[in-house]
């Protein structure tokens, strides 16, 4: 092996990593919040919404779940401007992540809603609530509690998947690795470090989300 490992450059370039980490986390956070909202809206439309509305979320969910994220990203960034809809790299990355997570979380939320005992819907209606009120006040919170672990995993998957947004010049953690690589020609070291950072972020995110879950849902698991 004629290759000498060299991590000496880290001292010069660590701000690039820090910025990359920050952007990755920022994208993940905003995309998760917005994506879950989209997911809830779709799950509602699909399970409780008016009949004419139902095919829409289904088409959206199926399309997104059956195409690669990177193609969705390219389509949004390179393709949409053809329709006069132009976004910066960061905006396009965020939109792609929201659209992607929206479809997955819609299915997760739907499973959570469908696990709600029928009696809960009936108790809500018999107290005079309309469908939307039952959904909002009776169904949603226990459903979210039920699916919190699944949503957390999906948020982590989205964070890891966001590595490809560097392809459209969004300056995330992978971009940092690529940038350093092209300045120092230390490809393996740069990717090795960023992989380790991703792993730590994933583990940390899992703990943080579990912690948030036990904070906002202090009750024992709802069956």
């Amino acid at each position, binding site marked *: 092996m004629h290759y000498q490992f060299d991590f000496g450059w880290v001292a010069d370039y660590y701000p690039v990593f820090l910025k990359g980490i920050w952007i990755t986390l920022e994208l993940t956070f905003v995309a998760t919040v917005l994506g879950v909202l989209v997911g809830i809206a779709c799950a509602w439309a699909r399970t409780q919404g008016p009949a004419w509305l139902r095919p829409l979320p289904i088409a959206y969910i199926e399309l997104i779940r059956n195409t690669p994220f990177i193609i969705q990203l390219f389509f949004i960034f390179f393709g949409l401007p053809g329709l006069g809809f132009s976004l910066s790299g960061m905006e396009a990355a965020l939109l792609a992540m929201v659209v992607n997570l929206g479809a997955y979380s819609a299915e997760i939320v739907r499973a959570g809603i469908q696990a709600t005992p029928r009696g809960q819907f009936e108790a809500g209606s018999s107290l005079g609530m309309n469908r939307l009120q039952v959904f909002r006040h009776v169904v949603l919170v226990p459903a979210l509690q039920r699916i919190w672990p699944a949503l957390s995993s999906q948020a982590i998957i989205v964070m890891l998947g966001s590595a490809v947004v560097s392809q459209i010049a969004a300056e995330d953690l992978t971009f940092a690795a690529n940038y350093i690589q092209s300045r120092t020609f230390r490809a*393996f070291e740069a990717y090795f470090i960023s992989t380790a950072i991703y792993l730590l972020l994933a583990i940390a995110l899992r703990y943080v989300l579990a912690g948030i879950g036990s904070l906002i849902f202090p009750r024992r698991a709802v069956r």
Partner: protein
Amino acid sequence: MTEFTTWDILRNLLLATRWTLVLSLVSFVGGGLLGVLLLFLRIGRARIGRIFVKYYVELFQGTPLLMQLFLAFFGLGLFGIDVPPWLAAGTALILWTAAFLAEIWRGCVEAVVKGQWEASASLGMGYLQQMRWVILPQAFKIAIPPTVGFSVQVIKGTALTSIIGFVELSKAGTVVTNATFEPFTVYGFVALIYFAICWPLSKSSQMLERKLNVAHRNH
């Protein structure tokens, strides 16, 4: 300069789809075989085996597939192994697939109710006999829908290999875009081709799942 017609675009994309399919198949079969090995270590009696697989899974599920591809591509080369893109892509995807399949299958083995372990134990069967004759046959059936479902993830995962230069459907999309300046059309087609491959698999996974649930309720 030559002009691409819509047909040229589609034809070139479809030709590249071959490589997406080949790579998906290789990854899935290779990952499946390695996954079985990991599964046995994970549910086996040797503690080191279980711990090894636990961390293996953590590593591959906790880092981006893209990084795994980069490391396979540039990392293996450092050890004097000559890694063309297809080999790096195949290796990384197999390792990645194996981690997920091993974890999915472990869930299926654990989904077999405790009573089955106890009943077979009380008939005098040893661990391997229980596995072979009682647990795995049941786990196998439970495992089919999620395994088919995961094949969709593998196919979508192959799209990332474009970034290390393996010319499959996604890479063909980028290259053709650069020659035609029609990203909307090209990526639209690319998405449709992926959808045409993945959607039937997703659907059949859901249908198998439903069938299995109905079968379970009859018990």
